[in-house]
């Protein structure tokens, strides 16, 4: 039978662990709400921008214009891996790293062999993992989470766009967790550059006879960088919300597990206590018997 004191110490330690996981769950829930708000706030901008881009592209053949739409043979690839700075979020980060590794080992293995594949880490978990491999590592942007807003993400996007325009990369993909709900996140691999041309809606053409200033082509050229920035911003916001959702779920499970563990330990403790009492009574009774005799 386990020592009474030992069991008591274990119960206390599991109890304090449970308190921590419970607190982390609560914090994650609050942060999740804020992250979800940010997604909702940016949605009108993204959808409107897309709509205007479609309206403009409708009558002009913009698909072939612009440096960001140029499709080149894929020799040099950049993978943007969006993870979090902190752990304890279930499979959130390992899912991203597994997907990126699959891209490295399978889809782009020829580029890796030629040393033409780079990984740009957003979030400390990815930078910790890929900084070990100097051939792959292209730097990190872990500080983006300390003040997550459009401008800080736009700076990263501009850097990537510049590299693409200079021909340092022929293709840029983003790997991130898409937010579905607190319990479900999908790992998404999305092509950032070259852009896929906006869809052209033929039907509405006659209805909206727009004046374009300065010119349709120029507007498309101006809007495309904006839409690329928006796409990256959306990916990072999604990933941020997913992180807190994943952590909330993981911590909720951990709290439940701790509760079960405590239950088992309490049972064990009470059994041991009962056995000790029974033993004592046995001794007393035996002693009394001996005196009588």
């Amino acid at each position, binding site marked *: 039978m386990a020592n009474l004191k030992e069991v008591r110490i274990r119960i206390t330690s599991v109890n304090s662990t449970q308190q921590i996981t419970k607190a982390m769950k609560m914090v994650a829930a609050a942060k999740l709400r804020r992250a979800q708000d*940010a997604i909702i*706030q*940016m949605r*009108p*901008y*993204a959808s*409107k*921008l897309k709509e*205007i881009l479609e*309206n*403009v592209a409708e009558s002009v053949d913009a698909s072939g214009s612009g440096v960001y739409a140029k499709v080149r043979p894929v020799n040099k690839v950049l993978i943007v891996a969006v993870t979090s700075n902190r752990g304890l979020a279930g499979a959130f980060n390992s899912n991203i790293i597994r997907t990126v590794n699959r891209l490295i080992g399978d889809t782009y293995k020829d580029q890796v062999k030629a040393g033409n594949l780079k990984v740009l880490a957003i979030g400390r978990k990815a930078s910790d993992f890929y900084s070990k491999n100097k051939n792959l590592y292209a730097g990190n942007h872990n500080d983006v989470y300390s003040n997550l*807003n*459009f*401008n800080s993400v*736009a700076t990263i996007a501009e850097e990537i766009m510049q590299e693409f325009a200079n021909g340092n990369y022929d293709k840029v993909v983003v790997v991130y967790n898409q937010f579905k709900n607190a319990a479900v996140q999908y790992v998404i691999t999305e092509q950032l550059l070259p852009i896929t041309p906006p869809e052209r809606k033929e039907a509405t053409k006659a209805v*909206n*006879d*727009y*004046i*374009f*200033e*300065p010119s349709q082509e*120029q*507007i498309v050229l*101006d*809007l495309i960088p*904006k839409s690329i*920035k*928006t796409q990256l*911003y959306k990916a990072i916001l999604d990933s941020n919300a997913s992180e807190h959702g994943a952590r909330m779920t993981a911590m909720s499970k951990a709290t439940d597990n701790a509760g079960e563990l405590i239950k088992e330990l309490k049972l064990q403790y009470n059994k041991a206590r009962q056995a000790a009492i029974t033993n004592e009574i046995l001794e007393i009774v035996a002693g009394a018997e001996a005196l009588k005799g």
Partner: protein
Amino acid sequence: MFLEIITPDKKVFAGEVTSVMVPGAKGQFQVLKNHAPIISTLINGKVKVKTASGTQNFDVKGGVIEVLKNKVIVLAESV
């Protein structure tokens, strides 16, 4: 006419206005009621909004404006 000023971080303004002055790429211009449909890019500058209760100024950093059927939408990268 109805005006919305939207940035990726939040909706800055939404409401009925009488006129909007924006820094268009080809020069500043004013949008009044029943303006013809227009899409124009904006440069950095001031957006002057006139409502029934007064005027309001917004400093925008680049963006695009769309006017369609008395609905004005300004998408700015930051305000």
